[in-house]
Structures are given as C-alpha cells and as structure tokens.
C-alpha cells in the first residue's frame, strides 16, 4: 500500500505542499552555538555574581533557605489537659528555640503526686500553639538550597533575588530521553562506531568521572559497572526497556525524570531498543573527545518539553548558521521515528496535499521520503523529524 501510494505521487499530477510543518521538532545537534542557561532559585534568596563575571561548573551562584520541616506535638493530649488550659503550663514561649529532649510543658497536681511533662521531640523553634486542638508546632532548622553555575561561562544577566543567566560558546546536543541530573566530566568515546553496543568490558577504572559515549544501545551490565567505577554519565543510542527498568528498580510511567538517584546520568539519543546513534551525533561527540562537558538527563515530555542535553564548551568558533526552524521542503533531511522504517534517514521527496490511506487504514497527511538507498517510501508527516543541520 505504501509503495502504491508513492508511485501515484511520483507519476501523478496531484497537488503538493510547498512547505509543511513537522509535528515533532528535531533534536538539536549543533557543533558551534551560544548556549544560555537560566539558573534560578525555587524561592527568593541571595544571588552572588554580577553581570559580566566569569563562573565555573561548580561555582555557587545563588543561595536561599526553605523553612524547616514542622513537627506537630500533641501537648494537651499527652498532658491530659484541656487545650485552653494548657498555655499556663508551657515552659517555652512562641518564637523561642528548643532543643531535642528539652521540656516543653510541665504540670503538677495533688501536691506533686501527679506529675506530667512533655519534651521536645526535635530541635527547632516553637512556632505556634493552638488552644483549639492543643497542638504545638516546632519548626526545624531552615534547609539551605544552593544553585551552582552548571556550565562555565559569563554571567550575562542577573535576576535580583532569583538567579542569573550564564552564557557560553559550546557544542550542544539534545538526547531523546534521560535519567539522572546535572553532572560534568571529560568526554571519552568507547565504541569504534555508531552501531556498536556499549558493553561492560569496555568500561575501565580510568573512566571514573568521565562521560562515556557508546554507539548503539548500552547494556545493563555496562550501566552497573559504570556506577561501580564512578562514571559521571553515559550517552548511547538506545537502551532495552527491561534493562532500564532493572537498573532504576522501577518502571518509568510518565516521562518526568532527572531526580533518580542511581549513581549516574544516562542519556539516550534515539530511543528504546536497538538504536544506532545518529552518525552526526556520534561524529560530533568523537570530534570533542577529551573536552569537558556538562550533562543533564532531566526529561519532561509534557507541559514544557525538556530534553536531556550535552553541552561541550569550546572556543572553536565556526559558522554554524542558526537556521530558523523551517518547515519541510523537498530536500529537507529527515529521520523516520516510527515503524516500519524506524531510524531510517533520508530526504523529503514530495509533500502530497491530499490525505492518504495508510496500511492501518487511517487517512492522514503524508510525506514521501527518498531513503539513503534511493528507495522512496511514504510515511505520515507525524512520524518524521527534521534533522537540524
């Protein structure tokens, strides 16, 4: 059915779109670009650098405190008192600090035959006491929150009390899915090409703190060994679903990641299963072998798409024309991102306007693609992504 449709398009005289939207934005793979990162506190706080300052990976640029955890103490209930009678037996005033084990309230009756007391279960500040419920709240020490620079570069803007924007010149590569948060390290390519699987025996003790690059998928054993050695991050084409589940100890339900504590950051660039890393991505990473890079596995697919990233700061300024995100036109390089041609690369051959029937019998808008081998295939426009060059 696919081929028939193609023949009709190639030989027929039906209308074609001059340009069309790709539904899935292409992932960025840029050799030379300006990267800006907004580093922001979750609450208002203090920001240290000034505009124009140079910062490095681990420099703390902003700091704040979030209020400590509260502890509810049922004073009246423990003391056997009515809530409204309790305050006169309190030994601490609202706002006073208390140490763990220190007496909070004390009560004596019948010439000392009945004694009741309550001690502070935690250290902190006595925040409140309710005469309705007889409960007191002790607020723990404030919890400090720090934000580091993440990338080395120049502070180009300061948002008072909130954070700063840091800019650097770098190579910038987006992955499709990742786990684990921000790390940095030196890049080392372990596979000889973009089709080789990254296995455990390739990982050696000297790879501690490195960012390791594979070609096709990464195996479960490789991930385990990498954690054992202390590798900072692994970047590979794909991963088996079962391997990821075993490694994280949990099936990924919704793609909001980055908070996993698995001892390593993992980025896959293509998808799940056996997936060759795109040649362009692999070549770029190879070119920057030995360079230091910042890596973040955080991924969020819904409500503000966030893809995992590899930022490789460098000074090799080249013209890498910042192409405005164009639509598809004949000749646009394309990657197919779903069966039956998943992973195939080619270029747009034509863009028929009329809806066409797929093998699934859905009527959709399609794109005809000339694959690298010369074969022309038809796929839904929704199932391709533009390779950004």
């Amino acid at each position: 059915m696919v081929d028939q449709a193609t023949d009709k398009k190639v030989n027929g005289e039906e209308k074609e779109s001059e340009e069309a939207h790709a539904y899935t934005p292409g992932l960025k793979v840029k050799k030379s670009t300006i990267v800006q990162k907004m580093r922001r506190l979750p609450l208002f706080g203090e920001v240290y650098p000034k505009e124009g300052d140079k910062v490095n990976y681990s420099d703390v640029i902003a700091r704040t405190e979030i209020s400590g955890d509260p502890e509810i103490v049922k004073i009246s209930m423990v003391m056997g008192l009515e809530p409204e009678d309790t305050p006169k037996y309190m030994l601490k005033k609202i706002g006073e600090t208390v140490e763990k084990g220190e007496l909070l309230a004390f009560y004596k009756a019948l010439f000392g035959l009945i004694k009741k007391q309550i001690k502070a279960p935690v250290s902190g500040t006595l925040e409140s006491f309710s005469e309705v419920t007889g409960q007191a709240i002790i607020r723990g020490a404030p919890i400090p929150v720090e934000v580091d620079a993440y990338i080395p570069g120049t502070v180009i803007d300061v948002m008072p009390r909130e954070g700063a924007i840091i800019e650097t010149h770098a190579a910038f590569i987006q992955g499709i899915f990742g786990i684990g948060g921000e790390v940095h390290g030196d890049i080392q390519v372990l596979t000889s090409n973009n089709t080789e699987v990254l296995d455990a025996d390739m990982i050696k003790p000297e790879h501690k703190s490195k960012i390791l690059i594979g070609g096709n998928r990464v195996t479960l054993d490789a991930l385990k060994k990498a954690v054992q050695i202390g590798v900072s991050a692994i970047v590979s084409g794909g991963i088996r679903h079962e391997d990821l589940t075993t490694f994280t100890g949990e099936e990924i339900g919704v793609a909001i990641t980055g908070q996993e504590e698995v001892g390593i950051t993992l980025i896959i660039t293509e998808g799940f299963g056996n997936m060759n890393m795109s040649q362009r991505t692999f070549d770029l990473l190879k070119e920057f072998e030995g360079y230091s890079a910042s890596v973040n596995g955080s991924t969020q697919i819904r409500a503000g798409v966030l893809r995992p990233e590899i930022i490789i700061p460098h000074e090799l300024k080249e013209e890498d024309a910042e192409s405005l995100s164009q639509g598809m036109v004949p000749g646009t390089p394309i990657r197919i991102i779903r069966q039956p041609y998943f992973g195939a690369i080619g270029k747009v051959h034509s863009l028929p306007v009329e809806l066409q029937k797929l093998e699934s019998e859905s009527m959709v808008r399609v794109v005809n693609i000339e694959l690298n081998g010369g074969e022309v295939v038809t796929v839904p426009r929704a199932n391709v992504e533009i390779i950004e060059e």
Partner: protein
Amino acid sequence: MQFIIATDVGSTTTKARFFHKKNGEWRFLVAGEAPTTVEAPYEDVTLGVQNAVREIEELTGHKLLAPEGGMIIPYDGEKGVDLYCTTSSAGGGLQMMVAGLIKSMTAESANRAALGAGAIVMDVIARDDGRQNYQKIQRIRSLRPDMILMAGGTDGGASQHVMEIAELIKAAEPKPRLGVAYKLPIVYAGNKTIRPQIEALMKEGFALDMVDNIRATLEQENTEPARRAVHELFMEHVMSHAPGYTKLMKWTDIDIMPTPAGEGMAIQLIANTFKQNVLGVGLGGATTNVYSIVDGRFVRSVSANLGMSYSVTNVMKEAGIDNIMRWLPFSLDKEEVASRLMNKMIRPTTIPQTLEDLIVEHSVAREALRLGLKHHRTIATRLKGVQVQRTISDMFEQAIVDSYVEMMNIDICAGTGGLLSHAPRRIQSMLILTDAWLTEGVTRMMQDSVFMMPHLGVLSTVYRDAAWNVFDKDCLLRLGTSIAASGQAKFGDHVMDLHIDMPNGDKLEETMNLGDLKLIPLAPDQEASVLVEPANLYDVGAGPGKELQTTVQGGVAGLLLDARGRPLYFPTDDQKRKELLVKWFKATGLYDVKALEALI
C-alpha cells in the same frame, strides 16, 4: 446569532471549532488546529488561539480575528462572530490537593467536588489515610497545587479533629505551582461552626474562601457550593497567572472552563436529553476522564496518568504488559511491545502506520479504559457514613457493592478523545469500549465525531439548544447498540437466542453460544425489534434466564451481539486465545482481513 467560535486550549494542540446557524438550525462548519503556545519561547496562549482561528479563516474565507486582538464581535453580515467561548487544559490543567476528616466520608466528598470542577486531584489528605503526620506534611510540601479544597465534620459535629487537619496544612506551608509571589487559594467547605477558628488560622498566607459544608449532615452531600468556589478561584487566581490568559479572558464572552468540565457538561447533555444513565469517557494523550450520570447523579473521575501518548507507558506499568498483550492476536516479543510503547511516550505525536502498530495501540486503549473505569468506581460510590437498611440477602452476600456504576444499569456509553475519534473503522471504537467496560444487557454506543465535546459543553452553559443541535447532528456519532449477556459457563455452551425484526421486514434468528460475537448491520436512523431469550445462567437485563423484548437503535457500526461471557471468556492456552481473538475480529470486520491474516 449566526456564528459562534469555540476553542479548546489543550496541552499540545489548540482546537478551534466554527458553528453556523443556517435555516434556523445550528451546525458545525469547520475545524482549525494549531500547536498550543503556553510554553517558552511564546508563553502566550492567545498566539495558538489566533493560529487555530486563522486556519478557519483560510478554510472559509470568513474573517474572524480583530486586528487589535480577539475576535470581531458581533457578526456584521460579512465578518466576525456573535460569541466566542473556550475551554483550557494547557499547562497541566487545574491541579488540586484535597483534604477531609475521614477518608471515606468528607474527604471522599471533597474529592468528588474537586473532580466535578474539572481538577486533577494530586492527593487526598485525611485523618485516617494511613500516613503519619510527618509523612502527610512531607507530601503536602512536595506538592505544588493550584488550590486546596478542605472539608471535614458535619455542621455542629467534629471540630477539634478538623482543626488538626487545618493546622497540619498550615504547618506544611504549601506553595502554589504558578509563581512564588501569590497566596495559595484554599476553599473551606467543612463544619460551619468552626469558621471563625479556620479564618483566624488560615487568613494569613492563604487566599481563603468559605462555602457551605459539603456534608452538612452525613446523609447529604452538597458539592455544588464548593465546585462553584473552585471555579471562581480558578478564574481569579490560576488562570490569571497562566501565560496569556489575562488577555484570553478579555476575549471570551463567558468564563473559561477547564476542558474536563466542558467535556462533563457534554456528557450530561446526553443524559439529560435521553433521560438515561450514561457512562462517558475522554481518552486523551495524558489523562483519562470517566463520567457517569446514574439516576441523575453526576460524577467525574480523572486518571491523571492514564493516556495514549504521554502516559502510555504508565498504562503498561499499571495494567501490566501481559494484560495489554492478551489483546494481540499475533506473536510479538514482550520487549518489542515495551520498547514501542516507550518510543511512543518519548515521541507522543507519532501515529501507527502499520496494522500491527494500530492493534498494539488499540490493546493499550482497552486497558487504559478498563483501569479508568476501575478508578471511577472508587469515586462513584454510595455515600458512606449513612445508615443503610440491610436485608437478609445482603447479609448473605456479606456486603453491599460500593459503587453504583453497574454495567447492567448503563443505557448509553459515549467516548471522545483522539484514539476513539480517529479510529479508522467505527466498529473499532465500539468494540474497544465494549471490551474495556464489558457492557451488559442492552447498551447504546456513541462517540464524538471530531473532538468537540468540550466546546459544546461550554457552549451549552449559555445556549443549550444551539449546543444540543450541533451535538446531535454533527458531534454525537451513533455507533450502534450492543446486546451482551452477563454470566459465564463453559466455552461453547448455549448463551442466548435472538429473534430480530429488521426494519425491512426481514426476520433474523440468531443462536449464540459462549465465545460468539456477531455484528448485524443496522443503519443510524433505523430501529429493530428484538426478543432475547437468555439461557438459565445468563442475564440480558430482565434477570437470569428471563426473556427481554426491546427496541434497539442502529448506528454506523450496527447491532453487536455479544455472547463472550461476563467476565470475558479468555482461553488460558495462548494459541487458542489468539484464534478466538481472530474469530472476534473477523466476525465484526474490525480490521482488513487480508492484512490481519498476514500478521498471524
């Protein structure tokens, strides 16, 4: 009034629908869609709205957009519209935390009120929810809700324990999701005698609103005042903080409504018009909303992480991959299925090209719908805490079933959402709904033709007749009627006989045995008279073994005769299971036979 435009600002797509009154009748004219622009770099939803409306302008040549922004209102005989309204779920919709005193009483009522207002409920805090205070506090601190709804106590009833819950919330210092600079809205709908204490405690640090008690007595649940307050706060606080909404609010003639609330209104419109019990669903990319109207009582549930794209792998996680794979009539490696679903999740806008891929997605849909209904039943329950008179037979059955949503009492099932609306063959959505929900007795099946239920729901709040006319004529596609016998025995045993008087005068006699499924063509505007004679163990609505005489309506799919048993009969042997599925698929013309055979 001649032209109306309605939009739905979804999390990924903004969908515009254009309606026109012609010869005294309101009809759907054309649709336009564009990506939603709630995120950076745009951060202004009105851009997406304009793009979607511009598509309609291009398709119709009818000018709608005013140069200064918004729509040209009113229609001047040449350009513009008479009304613009919209629903929205962009940026994750309305996310709420709910609290009450007892989990199965006031907390449950508060949960129902929040869901009814179109919210996604992030957590329900109650005194007896099984968590320690410090765990509840940790949880509240980690959530960033848009709003809190708090209930607890009957009027004049429990007060100290309700205050304890309030103090716990206050101590946790929850922060709103949007912006650090504004006060978190909280609606108090509990024991009214402690309002002064609640006010004293909460007025600092929260935007407090107090409404009538949701459970003034245990025998009554009154969710309407809380629902209304939630809606007002949604407009006042949440919407006004979302990018571009202040502008959008000025453009619309009526309040912006959360998408699920609009969808719920549309499902209620079906129940009100047909005066029947309805079970509806919005099967989306991220969430599954289930709505029931049973004996006039409307309940909505939302399963925030059951969906067909963003949440597709969560369906796999919750249902288990084996439950998804039981619907596949061919062999496919487990890892392959899992990888395909993971790849769909990370590239959520892709669509199935091959039949094999389509069947995999249809299998996931059945499980998402099944889990969605299971979740719904935990919310659509009889009021607890009410004294119920038990009969001797109840005592023998040990307990009264909690949920009143029983398939035998459902007269109409209706579905909306991309997968159902875009199914290549209409019978596919009908069978997916039947398989997932296991309809019993006689059930009419309907679906949204081009995803416009939310639009018509919001429109129905001001122009009910216009909304219903479009709904009836252009939106609500009649799929057909299902006749399913409830009960189970041995495979191949006799289940029911049917005597069908077709509209053309033909008389059909059908004998159905366990495992049989049959589809009889009956057009949407046709009716047939049916006498069903179930075998002793089976029930089609009149009681076990009792015959039923009824009239059934046709639809684009037809009349589905289902003798597969309830629960559904599945052979344990894998090969036999696949053969039976193929038999069902072929009997209903579910997929292209040649393409299906090529897969087996």
